């Protein structure tokens, strides 16, 4: 099965592990893209042509998905830090439930902020 076996687990915690891994890699790829993108700051024309393309409603879906990845990975990361220090293993179910709620709230809020900033 190889590394696909990382994605076959069915307890909610196993799913959180799998998503942490996937979102971590997504964020890593985005980081690399982001650094390349920022090269454009060397030239005003290049920067403005790029931002007029990417800071737009067409790109909103991707931005919003990126926000979801970031918020889930960050909050779930905090949860992992707590458990990896040996704390709160017995309360892991309610903690994960709170995390799911916070992730959705953060996602909606972040997407809303971005969407309003995009204007018309």
């Amino acid at each position, binding site marked *: 099965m*190889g590394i696909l076996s990382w994605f076959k687990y069915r307890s909610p915690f196993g799913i959180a592990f799998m998503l942490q891994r996937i979102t*971590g890699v997504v964020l*890593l790829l985005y980081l690399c893209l982001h650094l390349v993108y920022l090269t454009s*700051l060397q030239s005003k024309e290049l920067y403005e042509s790029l931002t007029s393309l990417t800071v737009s409603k067409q790109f909103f879906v991707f931005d919003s998905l990126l926000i979801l990845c970031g918020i889930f990975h960050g909050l779930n*990361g905090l949860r992992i830090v707590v458990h*990896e220090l040996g704390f709160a293993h017995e309360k892991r179910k309610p903690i994960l439930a709170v995390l799911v709620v916070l992730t959705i709230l953060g996602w909606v809020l972040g997407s809303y902020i971005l969407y309003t900033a995009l204007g018309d």
Partner: protein
Amino acid sequence: MRGFEPIAWIFQALTGIAMVFLITAHFLTTHANHEMLSYENAVSRLGSFEYKVFYFFLLLFVTFHAFNGLRAIILDTDGGMRRKKVVNAVISVIALVAFFYGAFLLSRF
């Protein structure tokens, strides 16, 4: 302390916690409204000392965290663990390149 692994683990956690705040701040400074993203504003931000320090630490933390995370994923496999030294070396080099490239971009303003 026993070698690099415990340090890597603690820094993975600390950089993660720090980034919750840093990335939230970064998101808000760039996307609260998109005036912030105009070329002039971006350049003047990057020119200010406070933002330079802020971005320097964000860059430092994120490159360590992301590439140490990638290292953990690769070492979870038979193939990766067999070539542990190579994996560690290659990931370190890529992380350093990413870090110095980001620092180079920062230094241009």
